[in-house]
């Protein structure tokens, strides 16, 4: 038996063992969250606390969705708010940013370089920096506490147009010229050619943008004051910080589970597309 080969194989096994242990470690909080969501009342308050659920039950979900009558707004309203806002932002942003990126990448009108430079700088600051004037603009437009306040400011996102432009850059111009010769209008080329070949890119954009908006806490915190306009992250924090903390432990765990599930499922479904797109997203 070849000794060095054996050593190499042993090292490899060690590496796998280490990585699996690491995965196990990072997965712990998520496993705990899932298992807690399904715990019956007596297991929630066990001492010492038990990590895994013994007799799983859907009781907490039932409590959360039907029996939260102590709060003013039914929990389903928060789910609807989050879902509606996220979906509206994702699709309007996809449309607006792809159209813009198409111009920056393929038309290059005078000033395109300058616009892209500004977009690049906009990548470099936290969105919270502009929150005050944005709030003033939203408030002077009379949009506070409306869905518009949660949607409009988040359509033209620097990251989205940047991602799409980097992807469009490597679509050969010959493809567009060929379509031109065939008599297609620029609009048709955008819709039928560019968007068709860049499916992985915009699928990625949909995922990132959905996840970001679904989890967004700051804008809802700033732009909404009424209970019925709150989104899930805010609602969950209210559940957690309210006076009846102990009584709602189960509902809280169930809410967290519901909040966390959609991003994971969506990423799981589109993981391959995302990886194919991210190759092109470096800043050159």
């Amino acid at each position, binding site marked *: 038996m070849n000794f060095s080969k054996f050593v190499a194989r042993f090292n490899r096994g060690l590496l796998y063992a280490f990585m699996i242990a690491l995965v196990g470690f990072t997965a712990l*909080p998520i496993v*705990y969250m899932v298992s807690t969501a399904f715990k019956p009342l007596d297991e929630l308050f066990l001492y010492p606390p038990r990590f895994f659920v013994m007799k799983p039950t859907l009781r907490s979900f039932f409590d959360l969705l039907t029996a939260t009558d102590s709060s003013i707004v039914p929990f389903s309203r928060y789910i609807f708010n989050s879902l509606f806002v996220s979906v509206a932002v994702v699709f309007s942003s996809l449309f607006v940013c792809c159209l813009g990126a198409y111009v920056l990448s393929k038309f290059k009108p005078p000033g395109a370089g300058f616009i892209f430079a500004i977009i690049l700088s906009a*990548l*470099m600051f936290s969105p919270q920096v502009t929150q005050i004037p944005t709030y003033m603009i939203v408030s002077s437009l009379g949009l506070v506490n409306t869905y518009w306040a949660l949607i409009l400011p988040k359509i033209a996102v620097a990251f989205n147009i940047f991602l799409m432009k980097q992807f469009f850059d490597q679509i050969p111009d010959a493809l567009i010229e060929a379509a031109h010769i065939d008599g297609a209008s620029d609009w048709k080329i955008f819709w039928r050619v560019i968007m068709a070949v860049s499916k992985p890119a915009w699928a990625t954009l949909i995922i990132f943008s959905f996840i970001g908006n679904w989890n967004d806490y700051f804008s809802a915190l700033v732009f909404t004051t009424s209970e019925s306009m709150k989104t899930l992250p805010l609602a969950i924090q209210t559940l957690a910080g309210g006076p009846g903390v102990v009584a709602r432990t189960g509902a809280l765990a169930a809410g967290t589970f519901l*909040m966390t599930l959609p991003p994971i499922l969506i990423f799981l479904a589109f993981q391959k597309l995302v990886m194919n797109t991210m190759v092109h997203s470096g800043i050159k």
Partner: protein
Amino acid sequence: MQSSVEVNSPLQLAPQKASRFKLTNARKRAALGYLFLSPFLILFIVFTVIPVLQSVYLSFTYYNMLQPPRWVGLSNYSVLFLEDDIFLTSLKNTFIFAVIAGPLSYCLSFMLAWVINTLKAKMVFSLAFYVPSITSGIALSIVWLYIFSGDRYGLLNNLLLDWGMISEPILWNTDPDTIMPVIIVVSLWMSMGTGFLVFLAGLQNVSPELYEAGAIDGISSRFQELWYITLPLMKPQLLFGAVNAIVGAFGVFDIAVAISGMPSPNYAGHTIIAHLFDYAFIRFELGYASAIAVFLFLVTLGLGRIVMRLLSSKDE
């Protein structure tokens, strides 16, 4: 006379003006380009460019949203740096966080991506590390608060008590000494995000022939491969990851608030954004808050520029 000036100016591309003259093809395309770009530009200008400029203006004023802004010159900035002890605390916290968590998460995500790229079942491993970053920090804080809970019921305290490593529960999220470490640990857990994916994708894109060519040129170890072949090829991705890491590190807010509350005990978990939020939306001193925002903007932009200079592949 007037009209000829307009025609000569490249900025005059409004369709109704343009139609009066025979247009060159290029000009028509530019007009169409601006038309397609306009939805983005309008929203981008209204909700990003104007807010940034307005922040700069407001930072020189006293403004409480009820009365019109009153010009106060640099006094917001001088108060900020000379008199506001809590701001200095938040600055210190944010810098400690950025200096430790930023580079650590950046290196960690690159190392993990590098290791995962050599393994089988890449997708499974990458998913396992990516998932924490797409969970909501706010939602998951419920789990973290349980793990770091200050009484015997807290998971970590429970374990440490069982193993006899401590004799009394540690008040993880209320003791000023342990708040920051807890925030850093949780952020690191969540930090294998976009940067990690970009690294992973970049690594997969390095063609194997380059490694073979490198081997002929005398590169022998995996680390030499990494240093001489992989890293130079991955500059665009590394730059993207770095910009992401900087923005993330200086924008830390929701996790800190979820873990330590607002205001946190002795302001130990107070970050720049938390301070900004406090003055903007609790005290409604928007001029002062704008000065904080402008300062933060300059810091991230400056660091972003430095990183770009260091890693840019343009000037080679």
